[in-house]
């Protein structure tokens, strides 16, 4: 960390609360199909965690900890959403038909194309919100 953080208590708290937020966002994302939750809310929680880290340290540190450019996340998310829709076209079904496998992964449940679409929404929301927050904080 190049710059001294504004408040030691806040900086330490942000470092401990960020993994907690990421874990909870993942939980919300996986629960999304049948119960309240989903990719959008999960992405917002992740973005809030990184925004908190950017406030506690600096935007450069938050970018470094994210490792990828937020704009790249938008692109990968949109590509993943397109792929999840195209998968049903290969089987002769209408575009974006939900496909579910017969087996279920323990502790997660069935992973079908709607799950992939939710992950895509998750990535796009993280990318858009973090792009806005980082650009506003840098200006």
């Amino acid at each position, binding site marked *: 960390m190049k710059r001294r953080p*504004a408040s030691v208590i806040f900086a330490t708290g942000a470092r401990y609360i960020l993994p907690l937020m990421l874990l*909870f966002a993942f939980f919300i994302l996986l629960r999304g199909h049948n119960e*309240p939750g989903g990719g959008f*809310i999960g992405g917002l*929680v992740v973005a809030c965690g990184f925004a908190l880290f950017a*406030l506690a340290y600096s935007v450069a540190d938050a970018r470094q900890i994210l490792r990828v450019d937020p704009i790249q996340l938008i692109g990968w998310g949109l590509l993943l959403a397109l792929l999840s829709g195209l998968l049903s076209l290969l089987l002769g079904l209408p575009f974006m038909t939900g496909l579910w496998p017969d087996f279920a992964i323990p502790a997660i449940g069935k992973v079908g194309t709607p799950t992939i679409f939710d992950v895509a929404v998750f990535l796009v929301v993280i990318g858009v919100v973090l792009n806005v927050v980082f650009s506003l904080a840098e200006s």
Partner: protein
Amino acid sequence: MNDYQEVLQLFMIYVILPLLTIGLLLTLWRLVRGPTFADRVVALDKLSVIAIGIILAYAIGLDRPVYVDIALIVAMLSFLTTVGFGYYIERRV
């Protein structure tokens, strides 16, 4: 549903929720009237704390365990706004 749970639910609905609502109204008055900007920021923070209490009391009173997660999210994210306002106040002075 046993007797104890029913008493707890009635207690939440008829005692805790009205008390929290009174607190909410008093905090709202401070938010509207607050002489300085810092008063309003503190009132906003307190408003979110009371909102967490109301969500939890509602979750217990009406037996909806899903609402506890909402309270968890609000608790984790609400102090972000306070931090943001604090940052703004510090930069303005």
